[in-house]
């Protein structure tokens, strides 16, 4: 299953709920959720832990827009819009954690 997040981990508890209920598959961070995948962010330990069960992606255009493209954590794969579409196609279903 593909889990899509779009909220900053420091503003909302959405990341916690998503990680609690995501067992396997992929986690895609878009919009303000890309901050979760930047080194030194408070969410970094949680995200590192999640990598044991989920493949983690971050949308590069959103990192670039926020000036954070050079802060992407090791282990998180940057993807573009085409990659986003591929992820949706590859997974049987997806949940957007609004």
């Amino acid at each position, binding site marked *: 299953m593909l889990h899509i997040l779009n909220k900053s981990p420091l503003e909302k508890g959405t990341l916690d*709920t998503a990680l609690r*209920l995501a*067992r396997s598959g992929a986690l895609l961070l878009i919009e303000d959720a890309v901050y979760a995948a930047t080194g030194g962010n408070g969410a970094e330990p949680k995200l590192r832990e999640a990598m044991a069960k989920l493949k983690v992606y971050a949308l590069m255009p959103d990192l670039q827009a926020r000036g954070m493209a050079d802060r992407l954590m090791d282990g998180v794969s940057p993807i573009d819009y085409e990659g986003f579409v591929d992820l949706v196609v590859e997974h049987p279903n997806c949940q957007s954690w609004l």
Partner: protein
Amino acid sequence: MAKKFMLVNRKAPYGSIYALESLEVVLIAAAFEQDVSVAFIDDGVYQLKKGMQTKAIATNNFSPTYRALEDYDVDKLYVDAESLTARGLAPEDLITDVKLLDRDALAELMEQQDVVLSF
């Protein structure tokens, strides 16, 4: 053929339009005789709180509709037990009968769906 639809509710009622819109979609999916499940997670569990009195905020109290969903053959209402506990609520505080699920059971149920709609 009917598909397995899950509506995932994660927002409190009245503060935004999500809860009401979700309920509309539940009824639409039921009208098309789909296999509908409704999950209540995070603040979404507040949608099921008993005893809502909305007159003074000039808003329609739609919570009795959850109790009527059975009449539309929608009887798969699932509540995330951890979300309920974190808000000081228990099953007897809810307007209708639900199935309480732990995180593993809920995660598994989500993965089994053909379509997941988020509210």
